[in-house]
């Protein structure tokens, strides 16, 4: 038998429970090179970011009337920046942030 560290365990055949809103085993946020940054003052709530994000990483906070970004799963494709109608979304280099993804810590 092999020794597999607990944090690296994968279920048999990688078959995981579904449906789930977030899959903790399949975090893709560390793929990011650039991240989208939102200026809530400029946002006109056109909802394009929410509609166009292929990974549902923009959600509307209805209480605050604000799009909320999901850093755990955003791969940094920047489709949202491209589709933004008000100029509220801009791209910023990931490593300019204190919590920026440092890829070398993990294999990817």
């Amino acid at each position: 038998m092999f020794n597999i560290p607990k944090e690296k365990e994968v279920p048999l055949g990688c078959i995981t429970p579904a449906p789930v809103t977030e899959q903790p085993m399949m975090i893709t946020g560390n793929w990011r090179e650039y991240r989208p940054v939102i200026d809530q003052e400029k946002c006109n709530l056109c909802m394009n970011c929410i509609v166009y994000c292929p990974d549902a990483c923009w959600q509307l906070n209805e209480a605050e009337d604000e799009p909320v970004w999901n850093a755990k799963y955003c791969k940094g494709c920047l489709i949202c920046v491209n589709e933004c109608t008000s100029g509220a979304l801009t791209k910023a280099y990931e490593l300019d942030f204190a919590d920026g993804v440092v890829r070398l810590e993990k294999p990817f």
Partner: protein
Amino acid sequence: MAKEMVMSGLAAAAQAAKMAKVEVACSYPIRPYTALMMELAKMVANGELDCEFIHGEGEHAQLSVVLGAAAAGARALTGSSGVGVTYAFETYSPIAGGRVPLQMLIADRALDPPGDFGSEHTDVMSARDQGWIMGWAEHPQEAFDNCLINYRVGEDHRVLLPQFVCQDGYFVSHIPGKVVLPDQSQVDEFLPPYKLPHPLDPKHPVSHGPQIRPDQGTIMDLQRAQAMLDTPAVIKEAITDFNRIFGRKYSPFVEEYMTDGAEMVFFLQGAHTMTARHAVRHLREKGVKIGLVKLRFVRPWPTDDVASVLSKFKAVGVVETSTSYGGAMRGGNLLHEVRASLYDCPQRPLTTSFMAGLGGEMVPLKEFYWMAEVMSNALKAGKMKKNVYWVGFEDE
């Protein structure tokens, strides 16, 4: 009552699939395997088999259909030949990695170019490292038996791997032979109903084949490697039960024929074993100390069995029936595995590849006699002149 009939390898495999109560079959025509699906379609049309019979639009689709069916909990069967086998190549790793134990019947056909209908093992041997169980039948009876044995082994929860159940095109697939069809009760005793531990089920939803991180990929590979390591013990159990229930005398991995007192052996798999048996018998009558060792599973490769059996002899001639262009031995695939298996043995036989049975050509008796002569001369000289002989095309 069990009854004896004469039928081709594909008709025999279809009978086995029927007795295994296959629930989903997916077809796409390519010769020679097509006759399997013709037989199954007839059974479904006649109401003899309660099976969802689906026409795929290609081999990739065939494999995708049976993957879905088997993942949802149905015992599934598909099949192909030659370039059909390679067209579906992308699907092989996900099926094995996802641990879905469906079965694919292979009736070998040479790969292009150009179109060649003959049998050669290279088509599916190209897929030998994807995590599928794999082995060849020598005759229709073994084709029938291997269908049941492979379902039983692959579906075992210690294994959960798909299976390539192979037979040589035409030589086995189309030439009729004697087949004993057992009672349904015997098959039911041997083969329990298909039960996946993680089926697609609306009441307990699961995701199959999600995106994973590269560091999780290692673990996925490791799971498959472990399953392959666990498979030989399950094969041994299954063969013991099979022999008991059906009154057969299979060895799990390697079968010896006339090896008592043999100094040299042919080592091969599949249809040409039949001719080789006759060659061995005739050579024995002339006093040549030769025997035969037949391989029943290429994956998992039976390293220990091959080592302990082949190390008893002084020379081993591996009859390849597949190609490995530019490989370490410059011949076929089997000699690589044979030599690797023998490496740790204190006594190693002389070994060589005999390239024969390629493109679907016959391997007649006189070629086996020639191979035996090469081995005899090597024994006298104390060394094998070449690692590979293209039989019929070069002098010793």
